[in-house]
């Protein structure tokens, strides 16, 4: 068979079994190519939801690497497995009732005091966040720093898997960001104004107009809509 323009295949080992898949596929596509079907472990397919946490090793490298399966392409000889869920206890708190005392995060997640600064979390983070540093900032009550450093966290859970101190870093970061938003960062006035406008009922008239339209009329309206 003529295979001239065919994309070269690479070997990947999914949970220990070898598959030949076209190079250039993302890990997620490669798994699907190999016959796996996602019911969990995939969400946005765009690097935002954090559902597709994956660990892998390459030949001749002792390091355990990590990736978001939807964002990383296959390499020849990759051994991989997806870890789509991290069991983690999330505290129930009412952010309205919290404050920004230096031990506020420590109270909700006392295990952060167990951090031994091994940096495993930072090394594994597929978002390349300074995870250890945001845990340490949380430990000493530097809420703003913890919030800024953890801002791009997609809650994939990989850091929590690697942590010898059994910390669930992403919940800690989330609390820091909530406290920061509530008590530290300047208020987003435009949001408040927009909410107030909505609450005043400005959309009601338009909605009631729509409600009585026929399907064809709605379709027509949709086609003629003004876009940005």
């Amino acid at each position, binding site marked *: 068979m003529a295979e001239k323009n065919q994309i070269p295949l690479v070997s990947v080992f999914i949970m220990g079994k070898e598959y030949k898949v076209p190079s250039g596929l993302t890990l997620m596509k490669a798994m699907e190519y190999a016959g796996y079907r996602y019911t969990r472990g995939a969400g946005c397919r765009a690097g935002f939801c954090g559902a597709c946490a994956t660990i892998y090793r390459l030949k001749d490298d002792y390091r355990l690497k990590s990736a978001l399966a939807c964002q990383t392409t296959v390499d020849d000889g990759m051994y991989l497995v997806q870890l789509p869920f991290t069991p983690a206890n999330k505290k129930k708190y009412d952010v309205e009732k919290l404050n920004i005392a*230096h*031990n506020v995060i420590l109270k909700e997640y006392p295990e952060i005091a167990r*951090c*031994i*600064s091994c*940096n495993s979390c930072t090394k594994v983070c597929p978002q390349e966040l300074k995870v250890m*540093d945001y845990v340490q900032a949380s430990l*000493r009550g*530097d809420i703003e720093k913890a919030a800024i450093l953890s801002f791009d966290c997609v809650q994939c859970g990989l850091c929590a898997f690697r942590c010898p101190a059994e910390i669930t870093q992403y919940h800690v970061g989330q609390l820091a960001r909530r406290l920061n938003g509530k008590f530290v960062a300047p208020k987003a006035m435009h949001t408040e104004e927009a909410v107030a406008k909505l609450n005043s009922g400005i959309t009601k008239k338009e909605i009631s107009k729509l409600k009585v339209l026929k399907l064809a009329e709605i379709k027509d309206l949709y086609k003629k809509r003004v876009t940005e």
Partner: protein
Amino acid sequence: MEYPYYPGCTLKTTGKKDEEAALEVAKLLGFELKELPTWTCCGVVYNLTSDVMADHLSATRTLIRAQEMGRELKTNKLVTLCSMCYNVLKQVNLMYKNNPDKLNNVNLFMDTEEDYLGNIEIMHFLEVLYNDIGPEMIKAKVKTPLTNLKVDPYYGCMLLRPKTIAFDDQDAPHVMGDILSALGAKVIENPMTVECCGAHQIITNKEAVLDCVQRIVKASQSRGADVIVTPCPLCQYNLTTGQKSLFEKGKINHQTPVIYLSELLIISLSDNNQDYLKDYKFIKDKLEERGG
């Protein structure tokens, strides 16, 4: 002169004002404490188990940060304001100096950091004041002499124990007293000055801490101290909260203010109003009362 500076958690939380005062004191004495750009908790206690590496990682990382900053500032010193941090960092550092194989191990393990070379020198703020600046120089910069203020320099244990890390006489330390004398204060000799305040027992065994505090404070009060001065924010915390409990229980009849070293220094070295400091008014009133 610029020194890499490691704050530690306490100086950023309960000891925030002590830090502010210390940074200001440094400036007045012609040096600067430059905070490490990133740092982690020092590890709280030095783990004496001979074969654990994990518990030394926090301190090691800090030593590497100091090495990086030291290259820029052309110094191998790292300054702490907290006796506890001083103790942990210095012991970890010494352990590497005495065990090159352990240093090698930790460097292999921390494969994303540059190698620690083992030659950082850990100094407590007090040591910088005494060795690098000197009581004479400090004396020359005094604006408000602490004349007739009776101060009790309380060392605690973490600066002086074990012997291998002590920078002053273990049984009869004089460094803090000499500095306080330079400020014009009357230094009291308290035989309990190197007794432990109970340290982290405050969390699990408060009674034990109260016991320690009672002995220390009674000795201080019976010698007429106006204030107790400490080089350690944890001692300060224990002695302050301990006295409050003891007072409520009727075990002492008054509470002596416990002041972190930098607060007394700034009051003496600067004319500016320092009323952000918790005992500023107390000291000013005392000085007036004593005709200082």
